[in-house]
Structure formats: C-alpha cells, structure tokens
C-alpha cells in the first residue's frame, strides 16, 4: 500500500477509467452528456480511478478496462514491447494496471504487464549503460514514470562508479539549492 502522501500514487489514481452507473446520483456534474445536474442509471462516463474504485466497492458502478489496455496496445506490446510509446498511453502504466486489475477481473492484464515490464526492463538498463548522453532524449520519451526512475538510477550508479574510480572532490554544493549559479558581475 502506497503512502498517503505519495505523489506518484495520487497521480496514478487520476487516470480515467470508463464506468457504467448502476445507480442514479443527484447533485453532481459528472456526466457531460446530461443536461441536469445528475447522473442517470446506466450512464456511461469516464471517471478518475480514485472515484471509480470507491463507487465500485459500493456497487454503484461497474468498471471496464481502460483504453491503454485495449487490443491494439496488446498487439503492439506483443510485437516489440521495447518500442511502444507507453508514456503517451499512460505514464503510470504498471501502477495503474496493478490497481485496475482487481476491479475489472481480467487476468490477461497481469500477463501483459509482466511480459511488457520484463522486456522493457532489460532494454532500459542496456540503453542507460551504453547510450551516449545525446542519444538518450528519444529513448526517454517512450518510458513510463517507473522506467524513467530506473533509467536515472542506472545512470547515476554509472556516474558514481566513474567518480569513485577517478576520484574527485567529496564536498559539493548542496543539490537542494538548484543548479543555477548566480551570474558573475
């Protein structure tokens, strides 16, 4: 269970999922197609995950699989997982998948996530260790948040190793102050 204050967890739960209302609800502006301030029974709406899952537990809505786990994405991942642009589909692909899994009860998502992560994990690490600094920007745009963290961790471990081997100053300017230096007058 992620921490209450976890920024990434909060952002994951903002991803939209398609739901169908089983119960009507008054006084809320959620359904854009509705003319009154209410949701009809049977209305199809997209809700953020935090709202959808709570309503699902109270049997007020049913959730279907969100578009980033549709057939097209699955086929692309099966073809070559490492080249799929997961970030534009959902920057929290894996975390979102893990959260959505018990809600839609689709076991194939589990397999999809695992196989995608295994292949992409290897690719990401290989690229982080070998790619030249300038060639990285294109690779980075395809990665999800989790993979970006992984990539940066790999690069910083590489940098730390180099520093340890070559030596260098131990004491440095505190990183909280930011990279900017004041202009020299």
């Amino acid at each position: 269970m992620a921490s209450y204050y976890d920024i990434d967890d909060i952002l994951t739960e903002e991803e939209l999922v398609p739901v169908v209302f089983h119960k009507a609800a008054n006084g809320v502006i959620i359904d854009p197609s509705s003319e009154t301030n209410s949701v009809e029974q049977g209305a199809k709406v997209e809700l953020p995950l935090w709202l959808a899952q709570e309503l699902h537990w109270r049997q007020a809505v049913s959730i279907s699989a969100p578009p980033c786990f549709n057939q097209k994405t699955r086929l692309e991942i099966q073809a070559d997982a490492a080249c799929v642009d997961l970030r534009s589909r959902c920057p929290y692909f894996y975390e979102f998948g893990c959260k959505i899994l018990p809600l839609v009860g689709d076991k194939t998502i589990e397999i999809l996530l695992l196989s995608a992560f295994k292949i992409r994990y290897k690719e990401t690490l290989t690229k982080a260790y070998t790619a030249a600094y300038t060639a990285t920007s294109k690779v980075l745009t395809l990665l999800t948040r989790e993979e970006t963290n992984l990539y940066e961790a790999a690069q910083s471990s590489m940098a730390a190793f180099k520093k340890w081997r070559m030596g260098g100053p131990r004491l440095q300017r505190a990183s909280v102050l930011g990279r900017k230096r004041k202009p020299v007058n």
Partner: protein
Amino acid sequence: MHGRKAYQLVKEFASGEKGQLKPFNRELFGRVLEECNEHHGALQSLIRKMQEEGLDVQTARNADHYGALIHHLSLTRNKRCLMAYMYNRAEIIRVLAWKVGLLHELPEEIQEKLSDSEEEYFKDHAKTLKSYMSQMGLDVNVDMVPPKDPYIKVRVLEDVGGGIILSDKSANFARHSMHFLKRTDAEQYIARGLMEELTS
C-alpha cells in the same frame, strides 16, 4: 470535473526537478480550498434533503445518497492532494534546513518560493536542530566519511566578506583566493556554493 484542480496542484509539484522547490502556488491552493467548501455545501444540502423526505440517512441508498457520496469522496480526495502538496514541500524544506540553514539565512531566490508558514517551519526546524547540537556538544551535520586529512584546499567563489568564523585563524576571503582550511570549517561554505573544494 471533480478533483481536477487538486490534481493540477500535485502535478505541478511533480513536474519540478526532483528535490527542488517551486514557488508556493497560493492561487491554486486557495481555489482547491474553495472547491472543498462547495463540495461541503452540496453534501450538506443533499443530506438535508434526505432528512426532509423522512429517510434514514444511514441506510437509505437513493440517488441523493450517491450524490452525497461522490461529494464526500471528492472532499477526501482534495484533502489528500492538499496534504501531499504540503507534506512533500515540508520534506524539501527540512533538507534545506540541514544543508544550508543551520548558521545562515536562506538565499533570497529560495526564500521567495516559501509561503509564510513554510518560512516559519524552516526557522523553527533549524533552531531545534541547533539547540539539539549545542546540548549534545556535537555537530551532527558534518560529512559522514572520516577525512584522510583534516585540512583541505578551497577556492572562494563569491565574496563572503568577514562573515566567516574559523576556529584556528583568520584570513581575507576575497573572491578567487585560495586557502588551506580546516575541513569542518569549510564544509558549510561549500554546501552553500560559496567555496569549492580543490583536488590535486
């Protein structure tokens, strides 16, 4: 959409560089609070409506109940976003207090980014740390790795003036001058970016 503004607030925090502060977004923060009040108002009016209809608020499951539920969930969601925003900023501010704030004021460009309560938090935290260290008679903020040599060579990067207190000598710290200092004396100035360590 419910909780959209709170999401923007958290998103803004997340989009910054890791461990760096962005200016405190008073405007958006205030708007999320307004939204909370709106949700609260709507929640209460729905509950009142149910009571007027003679329903048991605890057990009734009609459309008003689900409307109220959605408002309630939006409220707790907004709360979580606001709390996370404050909490994560406070964490960075604590790091600041450890790194730079023990003996000095914050640099102006960082101080501008703090809200009033955050500034107070920073000052109090630095004060508590200082009083703890003076009681223990121990500087807990120095480098954890034991040095090979107690003295290091440093170059002054900015005019520091006479504000430098050294334990064993005094010198003129003009910009670009080089000195051979006790490591413990130099550490805090290096952390603040006023000096840099030279390695041979």
